[in-house]
């Protein structure tokens, strides 16, 4: 069977898998960004009662493996009465894991905003919320966008693990095709190329574009 025939027969399934991977990627990214923002801000709080939960969350999710967390959420959480459907369990695990890494980026980004900016906002008697939202966060966002680009690639790679709880993503389809045809190089090789294209032709250019737009919006470019 030539490679073209392979693509004709199994291409559509690999495309379906890619779409599922894209769906997982979008949901997990949204969750990761939300968690990163909340946990990152909490970690900077002066009040220990707010800070400690964020620290514990970040250390637990960064200290264990994504795969362990995924299995825990999918197999163990139902014992506590919380049953998540596999699609949900998948992106929740990936989003919570990468969100913990993102929280550190948010914290670093906020801390990289010069002190003078805080003082100026204070001098203009802005409320703390307004100061954070209008002055600090936009600048922090520009500073932390480049590492977020890398983090989103890690997130994309993380979504491949959801195939292990049978979410029919790209990885899962490649495994199924390999199981029925034994054409391993074609099945896994094509999947590798699709992941690469997803990362380099979609995620990276999008982040570069976002970096340019944000830099322009705060008047840095």
């Amino acid at each position, binding site marked *: 069977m030539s490679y073209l025939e392979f693509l004709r027969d199994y291409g559509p399934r690999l495309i379906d898998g890619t779409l599922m991977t894209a769906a997982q990627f979008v949901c997990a990214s949204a969750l990761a960004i939300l968690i990163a923002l909340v946990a990152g801000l909490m970690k900077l709080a002066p009040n220990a009662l707010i800070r400690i939960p964020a620290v514990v969350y970040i250390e637990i999710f960064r*200290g264990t493996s994504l795969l*362990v967390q995924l299995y825990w959420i999918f197999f163990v959480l139902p014992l506590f009465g919380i049953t998540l459907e596999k699609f949900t369990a998948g992106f929740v695990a990936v989003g919570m894991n990468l969100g913990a890494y993102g929280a550190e980026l948010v914290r670093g980004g906020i801390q990289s905003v010069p002190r003078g900016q805080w003082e100026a906002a204070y001098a203009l008697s802005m409320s703390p919320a307004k100061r954070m939202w209008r002055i600090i966060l936009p600048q922090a966002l520009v500073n932390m966008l480049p590492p977020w680009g890398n983090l989103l690639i890690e997130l994309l790679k993380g979504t*491949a*693990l959801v195939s292990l709880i049978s979410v029919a993503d790209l990885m899962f389809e490649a495994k199924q095709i390999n199981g029925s045809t034994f054409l391993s190089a074609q099945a896994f090789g094509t*999947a590798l190329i699709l992941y690469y294209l997803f990362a380099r032709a979609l995620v990276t250019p999008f982040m570069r574009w976002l970096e340019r737009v944000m830099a322009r919006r705060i008047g840095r470019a």
Partner: protein
Amino acid sequence: MFDWKWDFAFEILPRLLGATLNTLMAAGAGYAIALVLGLVLALAQRTPVRLLTAVVREGVEFIRSTPLVLQIFFVFYVGPQFGLRLSPWTAGMIAIGLHYAAYLSEVYRGGIEAVPKGQWEACTALSLSTRDTYTRIIIPQALPPALAGMGNYLVGIFKDTPMLSVIGVAELMHTANAIGSEHYRFLEPITMVGVIFLMISLPAAALVRLFETWVRRKLGMIR
């Protein structure tokens, strides 16, 4: 807590601790491969041969932006298709070693590029050989800034070893799954795996920080 059975937890503890050794071995062996191969990949990008540099650069990008678990499957299943049968351990070590070699090559590259240009020029002026330039001047200065990244990836490779369970390497996750399906109880094994990971990776991360400070002090970079 809910349905937690302590006697069951204690019964499976020895098996999990045994598997922890396998996990540590896998992480250690994978890291050793990655350390050496990463240096090769980093140096290959500094040769004057443009084509080699471009190919290695693209290869590193490829490995870094595709999932490790897929690479593990690829290495394990593609061999037999061409008559080369690899054991799960061999395939796993190749895949994880190569994956982290790509990451480490970037760390090395960053370290080497951080060495001021004047140092290179001084080596040329003193007509040091390429070998002496690297081993005596450049690498000793490139190492300290690279240490933080190297340490993080040591912890990272440890946390990625559970992925080896997909091809049947008997590390922690694989053992926990096996116990889970033998006893129809997943609560204790999977939770304990999580706790074991925390108990190793948190102190390891702290040790990496200490080591980094120690090296910087030894080299007189901080007082």
